[in-house]
């Protein structure tokens, strides 16, 4: 059974033109790292938070989210608490925003153990030190006595990861865990997350705007646009043969690091900007920015996710776009 399972989840907010989430289907199994990639406003963070029952206030909900078999939509507070303190944990973008600056690292890490599990101080401290060692911090005992301001952003994010592990979760939701960090620190955090995931056989959902990072770290990738999942495929396949024009566009937008000699290849950006909540489209939400959009087809009905080989693609032109996409994305093979 899948550890995390979204079934046709839709979230609508009053006063907006389109749903925040529109029919999300997504699964994460134990031992699997799955990426959810999208730009600002795509709904990727809302999706992740939904797994913990953190829905936007005043939202209309439809569909299901199950964490380890427990339904989250409409769940009572006790069930939600059991998910949040047991099965699933979340790591956020800004480690400094998630920690009380006037309390010691040790207090932050042991609080839930002492309050929820009723452990005594010595036992909780020993466990916290163990967790800090597990996330690769050099001097666990010393860090327990330190305050957040004494640690760098990268070290603090490791503390947050240790905090997420206290309850021994089986599912880790990582919402842009490295976006606020330097590139070399990002590698370090991803290395730790990857190691923990392997050691503990965790299911992991990585939310990111960076498709390259998703490709480097994950087994499978979901691509989201304007509240819908537009494509999902195993990483290698998504990279080599992106079927949705948006996926191809994202790949064509990232400047390649290694390029052939001579002047750099010109980027092929996606025209326009991501769709806000106050805009809506009757058909495919990407049609307005799509180079291949066909009038009378793409602007009529919203495409559903359909299977094409190993991939699921929501595009009316999925079959035929393959070849033409290869022409627009002037990307060197990885």
């Amino acid at each position: 059974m899948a550890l995390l399972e979204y079934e046709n989840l839709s979230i609508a907010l009053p006063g907006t033109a389109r749903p925040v989430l529109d029919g999300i289907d997504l699964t994460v199994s134990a031992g699997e790292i799955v990426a959810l990639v999208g730009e600002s406003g795509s709904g990727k963070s809302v999706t992740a938070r939904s797994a913990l029952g953190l829905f936007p206030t005043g939202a209309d909900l439809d569909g299901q989210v199950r964490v380890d078999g427990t339904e989250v939509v409409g769940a009572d507070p006790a069930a939600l608490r059991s998910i949040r303190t047991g099965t699933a944990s979340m790591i956020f973008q800004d480690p400094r925003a998630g920690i009380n600056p006037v309390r010691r690292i040790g207090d932050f890490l042991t609080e839930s153990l002492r309050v929820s599990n009723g452990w005594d101080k010595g036992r909780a401290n020993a466990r916290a030190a163990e967790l800090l060692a597990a996330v690769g911090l050099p001097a666990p005992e010393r860090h327990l006595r330190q305050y957040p301001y004494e640690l760098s952003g990268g070290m603090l994010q490791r503390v947050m990861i240790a905090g997420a592990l206290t309850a021994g979760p089986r599912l880790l939701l990582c919402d842009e865990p490295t976006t606020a960090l330097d590139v070399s620190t990002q590698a370090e955090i991803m290395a730790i997350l990857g190691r923990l995931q392997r050691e503990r056989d965790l299911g992991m959902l990585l939310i990111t705007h960076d498709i390259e990072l998703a490709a480097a770290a994950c087994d499978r990738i979901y691509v989201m646009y304007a509240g819908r999942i537009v494509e999902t495929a195993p990483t290698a396949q998504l990279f080599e043969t992106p079927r949705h024009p948006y996926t191809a566009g994202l790949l064509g937008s990232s400047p390649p690091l290694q390029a052939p000699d001579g002047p750099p290849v010109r980027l092929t950006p996606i025209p326009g900007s991501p769709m806000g909540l106050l805009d809506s489209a009757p058909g495919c939400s990407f049609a307005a920015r799509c180079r291949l959009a066909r009038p009378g087809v793409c602007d009529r009905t919203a495409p559903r996710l359909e299977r094409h080989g190993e991939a699921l693609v929501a595009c009316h032109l999925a079959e035929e776009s393959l070849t033409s996409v290869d022409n627009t994305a002037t990307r060197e093979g990885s």
Partner: protein
Amino acid sequence: MTVENSARTLLRVSGLRKTYRTGKTEVVAVDGLSFSLQAGGALGIVGESGSGKTTTARMLIGLERPDAGQILVQGEPLAPTVRGRAARLARAKAVQIVFQDPYLSLDARITIGATIDGTLRLHGLADPATRAARMRELLAQVGLGEREAAALPRELSGGQRQRAAIARALAVEPAVLVLDEAVSALDVSVQAQVLNLLSDIRRDTGIGLVFVSHDLAVVRYVCDEALVLYRGRTMEHRPVAELLSDPGHPYTQLLLASVPRPDWDPDSISRRRRELDPPAAEGAG
């Protein structure tokens, strides 16, 4: 240095140094920074947080005063302090900047058109019709039109705002344009649009670009030379293509390896990072 040579050199920075004092400890933000930029050239200043790249940008635009060293723009030294209108305008014509955050770098209260109009008026375009024409020209150059001119910043997307900020900087007609992480807050698809725009501007105007960024791939795309900063010191300064294909300094190698890609190995990167930068030295962020 021949006269001919100095005319082609837009920017010459030599021995730049800046330190900050917090309590008793002195932190060296930038030390011994030297480089030069030819007309139409683009230099990338690459570094992570604490590398001194933002301090460098702020010194170039006169928001910070260097402790030592000299900045020459078109052969003229950039005065440490400016007094009087003429000096202010001359300094503005030397170097302009585009900041990282498209949400905070425009005046929220006035329209994009009014912002650019104010800049043009300050820089001596007295006739309203001339100003309007020049404004249209500038906005067209960055891919914006009448609709955006009449809009307040909050009515525009991040990419449009960043285009407006570029137009505002170009309105001064500076010799050098500093871009301080100017695309890193943008969505990937929008970032590509702005990067293409920057290379167009560079090709069309002959302006010199100083591109401050943490992102090697982006620097690779915009610049011909790159300078790698680490803790305020220059690690490497070479043509970008060469730097990327054959990085000399271990730090450059680490930066390059850190960029996510399919054969990425975060474990070996963190090991190399620890070797380069022992945890004991890792201070507060």
